[in-house]
C-alpha cells in the first residue's frame, strides 16, 4: 500500500517537474538556513558535562553588601559572579561538599629545555586536585596531584596533550620537568582531549576556547604571587596595597565549584553557606544578612547568558524564514493539487475513498519534504562552511555538525512539509467526483 502510494506520488511529482523543483528548493533553502543557525545554537546551548550537570554547583557569596557601588549592570540579584580569596579559603577549609575546588586563570612564560626554542606564553588554571575528579577529566598518562601537594604548595603540574606534544614531542611525560617563569614544575599527569563547550567553570574567559594548557595547585600559585589573568573586580573595598593586601581584600576573582551528588547534600550545602555568611556577619566582616546562592551547571549557563543574543536573533530570523518557505511550498502544493482535481475526480469515481486520496497526497508532501531535507542538509554543510570563513576562530568552534543534527534536519523537513501539506491534501479529499466528471 505504502509502496503503491509512493509510486503514485513520484509519478505525480514527475508530471510537473517545475513546481516540484520549486517546492523542494523552498523547503531545502528553509531547512538549510534554520539548521545552520540551529547547529550554532545547540553548540552554545550544549550541556558541557551532561552526566554531572545537576550535581555540580557554582557558589556565589555577596561580600560587598547591598550598598556597594557597582555590580554588573542588569544584575537583579546583586550578587558577584566570582568570590574573594578570603571566602575561597574559608570554603576550601570547611570541606562541606563531597568535592570542591577554588580556581582562577593565570599564566606564565614557559622556557623550553632546548635553548634554541624561544620562551612562549602558557595559559594556566590554578586549582585544587578535586577539579580533575569533579569534572571527570580524562588522563592520558599519570594522575592528578595529591591533596598533600595542595597542602604543601608543591611544584607540580598537569599538562594538556597539546602542550605535551609541543614541549616533549608527545609520549608519557610524567616525571619530566617544565620551567615556568624560572621555576621548575614536575609533570604528574597528561590530560587526554578535554574541552567542555561552553567552558562552564569560567565563562569570563574564552567561553568556547580551548581553556588552560597547564594546571597547577592553587596554593602554589598564590604562594608564587601569580595574579589572576581573568576578570578582577575590586569595586568593593580595594584593601591594602601589595599581594598580601589583595589576598585580604574583598576583590572578587576566584571561581568556586562544589559537587553535591544528592538533593539532601544540596540542601545541606545551602544551609552551610548561609551559616558561613552569617558567621562573617557576626565577626563584623559583613554588615548585612547572609546572601548566598548556588546554581547547577544548567542554571549557571542560563544565568550567565551562555547563548548570545546574536545567535538567538539568527535562530529567530532563520525559523521565520523557514515558515515563509513552508507557506510558499503550501501555496505551490495547493496549486498542484487543484490542477489535478480532474484526476482525483476520476479516481474517486472509480472507487477510491477520501482517506485513500488523503493518504496519497500526504505521502506526496512527505516525499517533497524528504527531498527538501536532503537538499537542506547539503545547504547546511555549505552554510556552516560559510560561517567558519566569516566568524572568529572562537565562534567557529560552534559550527560543527553532529550526527544528531542530520536526523533533526530530515525529521524537521518531513514533518514541517507534511504539516504544510495538510490543508492542500484536505482540499484534495474534498473533490466531488461528479462535478469534476461533468466539467470534463
Amino acid at each position, binding site marked *: 500500500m505504502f509502496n503503491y502510494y509512493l509510486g503514485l506520488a513520484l509519478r505525480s511529482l514527475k508530471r510537473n517537474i517545475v513546481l516540484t523543483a*520549486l517546492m523542494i*528548493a*523552498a523547503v531545502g*533553502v*528553509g531547512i538549510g*538556513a534554520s539548521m545552520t543557525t540551529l547547529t550554532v545554537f545547540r553548540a552554545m546551548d550544549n550541556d558541557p558535562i551532561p552526566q554531572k550537570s545537576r550535581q555540580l554547583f557554582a557558589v556565589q557569596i555577596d561580600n560587598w553588601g547591598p*550598598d556597594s*557601588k*557597582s555590580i554588573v*549592570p542588569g544584575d537583579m540579584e546583586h550578587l558577584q559572579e566570582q568570590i574573594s580569596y578570603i571566602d575561597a579559603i574559608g570554603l576550601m577549609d570547611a570541606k562541606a561538599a563531597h568535592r570542591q575546588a577554588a580556581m582562577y586563570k593565570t*599564566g606564565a*612564560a614557559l*622556557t623550553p629545555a632546548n635553548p634554541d626554542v*624561544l*620562551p*612562549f*606564553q602558557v595559559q594556566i588554571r590554578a586549582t585544587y586536585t578535586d577539579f580533575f575528579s569533579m569534572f571527570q577529566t580524562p588522563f592520558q598518562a599519570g594522575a592528578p596531584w595529591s591533596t598533600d601537594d595542595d597542602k604543601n604548595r608543591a611544584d607540580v603540574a598537569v599538562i594538556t596533550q597539546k602542550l605535551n606534544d609541543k614541549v616533549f614531542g608527545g609520549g608519557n611525560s610524567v616525571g619530566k620537568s617544565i620551567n615556568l*617563569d*624560572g621555576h621548575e614544575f614536575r609533570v604528574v599527569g597528561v590530560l587526554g582531549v578535554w574541552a567542555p563547550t561552553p567552558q562552564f567553570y569560567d565563562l569570563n574567559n574564552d567561553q568556547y576556547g580551548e581553556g588552560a594548557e597547564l594546571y597547577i595547585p592553587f596554593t602554589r600559585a598564590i604562594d608564587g604571587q*601569580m*595574579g589572576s*589573568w581573568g576578570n578582577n573586580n575590586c*569595586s568593593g573595598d*580595594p584593601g*591594602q*596595597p*601589595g*599581594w598580601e*593586601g*589583595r589576598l585580604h581584600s574583598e576583590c572578587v576573582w576566584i571561581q568556586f565549584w562544589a559537587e553535591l551528588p544528592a538533593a539532601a547534600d544540596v540542601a545541606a550545602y545551602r544551609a552551610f553557606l548561609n551559616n558561613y555568611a552569617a558567621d562573617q556577619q557576626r565577626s563584623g566582616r559583613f554588615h548585612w544578612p547572609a546572601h548566598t546562592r548556588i546554581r547547577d551547571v544548567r542554571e549557571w549557563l542560563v544565568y550567565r547568558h551562555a547563548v548570545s*543574543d*546574536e545567535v*538567538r*536573533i*539568527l535562530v529567530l*530570523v*532563520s525559523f*521565520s*524564514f523557514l515558515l*515563509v*518557505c513552508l*507557506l*510558499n511550498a*503550501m*501555496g*505551490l502544493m*495547493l*496549486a*498542484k493539487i*487543484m*490542477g489535478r482535481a480532474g484526476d482525483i475526480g476520476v479516481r474517486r469515481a472509480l472507487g477510491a475513498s477520501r482517506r485513500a486520496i488523503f493518504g496519497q497526497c500526504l505521502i506526496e508532501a512527505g516525499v517533497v519534504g524528504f527531498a527538501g531535507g536532503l537538499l537542506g542538509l547539503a545547504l547546511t554543510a555549505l552554510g556552516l562552511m*560559510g*560561517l567558519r570563513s*566569516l*566568524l*572568529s576562530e572562537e*565562534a567557529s568552534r560552534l559550527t560543527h555538525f553532529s550526527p544528531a543534527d542530520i536526523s533533526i534536519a530530515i525529521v524537521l523537513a518531513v514533518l514541517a512539509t507534511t504539516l504544510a501539506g495538510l*490543508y492542500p491534501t484536505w*482540499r484534495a479529499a474534498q473533490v466531488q467526483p461528479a462535478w469534476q466528471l461533468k*466539467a470534463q
Partner: protein
Amino acid sequence: MQFRPILSAMRRNKVGAILIAVQMAITLAILCNALFIIQQRVALSERPTGVDDEANVVVLDNQWVGNPPDQAARQEGDLAALRSLPGVQDAFATNSVPLTDSGSTEGISLHPDQKTASARAALYFGDEHAIASLGLKLIAGRNFNADEVTEKVGYTDLKSPAAIIITKGLADKLFPNANAVGQSIYDDFSKGQVPIIGVIDRLQVPWVSAGGWGSTFNDSSFIVPFHIVIPFPVLYVIHTQPGQAAAVIQAAPKKLFDISRARVIGKTRPMTALRTEIYKDDKGLVVILGIVCVALLAVTAFGIVGLTSYWVAQRRRQIGIRRALGATRNAIIQYFQTENLLIAGAGAAIGIALAVSLNLWMVSAFAMQRLNTGYALIGAVVVMLLGQAAVLWPALKAASIPPALATRAA
C-alpha cells in the same frame, strides 16, 4: 481599473491569496528588522577609537620571563630602542588599547562622601609619550610632564596618580557645564583629590560588543601617568611614520630579541588588524543576515510567480473570453498587477504591524534599539515592488492568451 471583479475572483481563491499575503507580511517583518540590525552593526564597527591613523599604530605584546626585579628599567630600554628604529615616531607601554576587549574600569567620584560613582570609565596607563604614540587629539589643557610619571608595580599597587587626562566624553559627564581642566576627581586610595590637567577629544574604551560591558560608557576613558610594571603581558604601542608600519612590524620584535631573549613577544600588528579581528563576528552577522534577506526575497518572489502562474493557467478560458469581448493585453496585465497590489498591500499592512511588534519584543529580550519606522516603510515599498516584479512574467503570459481560445471547447 475596477476592483470589484478582482475581489470577487479572489474570494474564490481565498487561501492562495492569504498565503501570499502572509508570506509577504513575514518577509517584510524579517526584512526591515534584519536591515535595521545590519545598519546598527555596521555603525558599531565603524565607531572611531580616537586614534588618528590606525594603519600606522602598531601594538606589540611583551611579557618577561620570570619576574625580573629591574622590569621598569628594561621596559624603558625597550621603548628607547623602539623609538630609535627608523620609521618610528613615538612609543609607550600600557595595559590596554581600544579594540582589545580587555582592560580595567573604574567608577569615578568627585567627592569623598558620594554613595554612587559619578561616571564609569576605562583606565589606561601611559606617560608623556602616550598621546603622540596613539595619535590622540588634545583639545584642552596639557600633556603629562616627565616628572609626573611614576612606577606602578602590579595592579595591587594602590599608588595614586599625580594627575590625569580624560576624554571629552568623560568630561561632559563629570562637568556638564564647566571646563574640566583645573577640576579634580576624588581618589579612594589616597583619600585625596587628583587634578585633571588635559582633555582629549576621544579615546574609546577597550570593549566593543553591542550591549556588552563598556557599551554604556564607550567614550569615557582616562589616562593615568604610570609606567606599568606587571607580571602580565604589557602592550607596547608604536606610532610609525605613514607607510612604515609593515617595516616596523618586521624590525621591532627583532630589535627587542637583540636586547634580551628572556621574553615572550605575542602578536605584533597594526590597530587596523585589531579592528578587523574584534568586529569579525559582527561583520559575519551582517553578511549572514544579508544572505538570508536575499534568499527570503527570492523565495517569496518564486512563490508569487508559482501561484500566479497557476491562477493564469486555471483561468485561460476566462481570459480568452475577456480578450474576445474586447479587453486589451494591457487590461489583462493590469488585472494581475492590481490583484497582486491588493494582496501585497494587505500583506504590507500586516507586515508593518508584525515588524514593529517583533522589534518591540527584541528590545525587551535582547540589547536592541527601537526600530526606526522608516525601515518598516522601506520594507513595505520593497515587498510591494517585489510583488509587482514577480507577477509580471505570469501576467505577460496571460496577456498572450489568444482571444480565439474562447471559441474553442475546453
